[in-house]
């Protein structure tokens, strides 16, 4: 428990060129947390974005207060997701960590309710179950997504329906333990976290999420991603 006995949620937002989206995500998060009465902080980890992301983060810090918005930048270029999380966690003062994309792909929803329901160590968003889903995806993208997920389920039997989503809630100690163990890069890293979590016996709850395709900015998903996904999947298959 965090100081004072109440739960506190630290949201880690790794950003690269999210100048348009960042204020909106922060506003949505702040509103969600305020409405649910939970204590929170938002940690923005920016990888030297050239579009002024840091400048807008500083403005947000002034508006919301520096106990709520924490700006931490990294001087390296093209850091991996893992590095961003490690860096962010060092400054996190909450007992729960929320990880999400800063690109408005994830419709902000109430994970903590689910967590409380089952006292889960991890709560993961899924696009594939319940009323979870996507918006703005063409047939080809849906097919690739379902196909990739099917192969993943067959090979890894992970016990979670959506491994490549990146909207998750972790207990802080659980995330720290997993960060030590996980070695992959990119979003294979997200998959590895769930697989390792299962192996370590952590409980995982799932919440349906709506993945609304990027409203602003450019998607960082390219053709190479499929190849690197398969390589990563096979690596996980052989090593976990």
């Amino acid at each position, binding site marked *: 428990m965090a100081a004072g006995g109440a739960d506190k949620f630290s949201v880690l937002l790794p950003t690269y060129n999210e100048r*348009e989206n960042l*204020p*909106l995500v922060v*506003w*949505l998060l702040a509103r969600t947390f305020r409405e649910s009465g939970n204590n929170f902080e938002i940690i923005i980890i920016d990888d030297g974005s050239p579009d002024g992301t840091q400048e*807008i983060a500083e*403005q*947000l810090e*002034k*508006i919301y207060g520096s106990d709520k918005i924490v700006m931490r930048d990294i001087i390296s270029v093209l850091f991996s997701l893992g590095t961003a999380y490690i860096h962010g966690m060092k400054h996190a003062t909450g007992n729960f960590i929320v990880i999400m994309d800063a690109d*408005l792909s994830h*419709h902000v929803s109430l994970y903590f309710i689910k967590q409380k329901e089952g006292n889960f160590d991890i709560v993961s968003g899924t*696009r*594939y179950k319940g*009323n*979870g*889903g*996507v*918006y*703005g*995806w063409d*047939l080809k993208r*849906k*097919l690739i*997504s*379902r*196909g990739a*997920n*099917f192969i993943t389920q*067959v*090979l*890894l*039997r992970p016990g979670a329906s959506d491994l490549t989503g990146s909207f998750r809630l972790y207990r802080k100690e659980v995330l720290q333990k997993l960060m030590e163990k996980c070695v992959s890069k990119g979003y294979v890293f997200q998959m590895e976290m769930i697989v390792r979590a299962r192996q370590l016996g952590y409980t995982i709850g799932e919440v349906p999420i*709506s*993945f*609304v395709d990027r*409203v602003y900015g450019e998607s960082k998903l390219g053709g190479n991603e499929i190849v690197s996904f398969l390589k990563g999947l096979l690596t*996980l*298959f*052989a*090593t*976990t």
Partner: protein
Amino acid sequence: MTKLGQWLCGLALLGSAWAALALAPPGLRPPAPYRQALLPLPVYLLVAFGCYSLATVGYRLATFNDCEEAAAELQEHISAARADLRRRGLRF
């Protein structure tokens, strides 16, 4: 054991059982009808798995939810956010 290890063990087990029965020398063979079913079994299973995969992925593709409401709601939130933040002094 890794997943790969599990698969290899499983395949080795099933493979050797199949080979022992299906490719046995004349003295140890199971009766002819059984052998006829047994010999092509690996191929049958592969094809069956292939069909299952296609059917499953097809079904999941067809039932993949489109979140119209969520998208509309998000647009509303974005407008509200921009208005509110502008009021609070954010220069976009």
